[in-house]
């Protein structure tokens, strides 16, 4: 049997692929930002003095991390309307991504907060910073900086996980691959091209987050107190 590869047929739908990439990246970026917020609150709840908050955070993380993302999406998209909560496909997908990634972000940020030594908090309070200032400048900011590499790789994993939201009908890259394939029947070519696109996105996001990190944390190197670290 001979099979003639016709990649040209795929590139005729280049505008679909472009749109798919745009939607994939939008979901990934928005979900990442929101899940860092969720993760920060999750981590704080885990370290709070209230036992109920600790337990709630723990249960959230364990349930999300020990069930497949696809099943979580199905519950949000097909299950919730049964109790009167009707999220559209886009909103269900975003909620799912944020909840899913938020659990991993919680664990990552928790480890960052744990790494902040008690004596630093005491030092902050003793030089007259308010509790809020200590929290922002001594706890959260250094914690996020410390776990920035882990959050970056989580970002790539999140971008790859967005392919699953095609299952509930969100038109992102994986969906468009399906659309093209049902239009021109060049399934292998379509999926080869899309896999390459995902790989390129991964590489771009990796170097992009590295550059962003260097820019965000540049003040550490500029700081006159750098030698004290």
């Amino acid at each position, binding site marked *: 049997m001979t099979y003639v590869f016709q990649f040209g047929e795929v590139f005729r739908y280049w505008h679909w692929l472009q749109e798919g990439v745009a939607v994939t990246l939008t979901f990934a970026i928005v979900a990442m930002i929101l899940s860092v917020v969720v993760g920060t609150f999750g981590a704080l709840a885990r370290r709070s003095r209230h036992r109920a908050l600790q337990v709630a955070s723990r249960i959230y993380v364990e349930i999300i991390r020990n069930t497949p993302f696809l099943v979580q999406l199905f519950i949000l998209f097909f299950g919730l309307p049964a109790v009167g909560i009707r999220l559209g496909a886009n909103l269900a997908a975003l909620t799912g991504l944020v909840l899913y990634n938020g659990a991993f972000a919680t664990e990552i940020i928790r480890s960052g907060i744990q790494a902040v030594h008690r004596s630093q908090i005491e030092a902050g309070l003793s030089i007259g910073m308010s509790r809020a200032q200590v929290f922002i400048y001594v706890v959260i900011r250094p914690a996020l900086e410390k776990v920035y590499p882990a959050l970056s790789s989580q970002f790539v994993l999140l971008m790859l996980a967005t*392919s699953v939201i095609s299952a509930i009908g969100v038109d992102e890259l994986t969906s468009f691959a399906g659309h093209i394939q049902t239009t021109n029947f060049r399934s292998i070519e379509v999926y080869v091209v899309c896999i390459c696109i995902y790989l390129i996105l991964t590489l771009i996001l990796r170097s992009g987050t590295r550059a962003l990190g260097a820019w965000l944390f540049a003040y550490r190197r500029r700081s006159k107190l750098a030698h004290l670290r």
Partner: protein
Amino acid sequence: MGIRYFTFNDVLYLLDATKWTLLLSVIAFAGGGIVGALITLARISRIRALRWFAMSYVEVLQGTPLLMQLFLWFFLLTLFVPVKLPATLVAAMALTLNASSFVTEIWRGSIEAIPRTQWEAAASIGMSRFEQIKHIIAPQAVRIALAPTVGLLVIVIKGTSLTALIGFVELTRAGQLVSGVTFEPLRTFSFVAAIYLCLCWPLSAVSQRIERRLHVGRTPERGA
């Protein structure tokens, strides 16, 4: 068959489908272990081409979505293999290769965590490269790799759910079928999620326990 209620029979059906999830997970984990071991050896090889191959292998499998890999294998195998392959085989193959990339990353990390001096000491008493790995490096690396390897099992089990999207009837696909006839998606998928939780939570807990236990004496706050 019209609309009917979610009954005990559906529970049995879902539990029955769980065995396919388990079977697929075991195949992918075992296969991933074997393939991953070979790729790990290539990754730490002294031959540059082998190292380069192993690196790109991992890069491609970890830099692309598992769902896309499943689709591609599905179409490749149906088109280029003249006999009709069962969906199980396609799913098992895609998951095995994906798992092997994780295995390689974990084991490479564990081997690199062993101090360079261990290799040198082994070499200096005249061990061959193979003997160094077998007697000195591997026994130490296994201890480090154990916890993340158990954790990988959770990733593999969760990954099998994606095979539902290429039509393989495992737990998630069974959930779709049941919710299709009962029109009770919330109850069905909650039950499906609960089954996954029962499979994965103990494994996560074991992984965390191993991690804690093997680090006793190494962490300053406990050892000092």
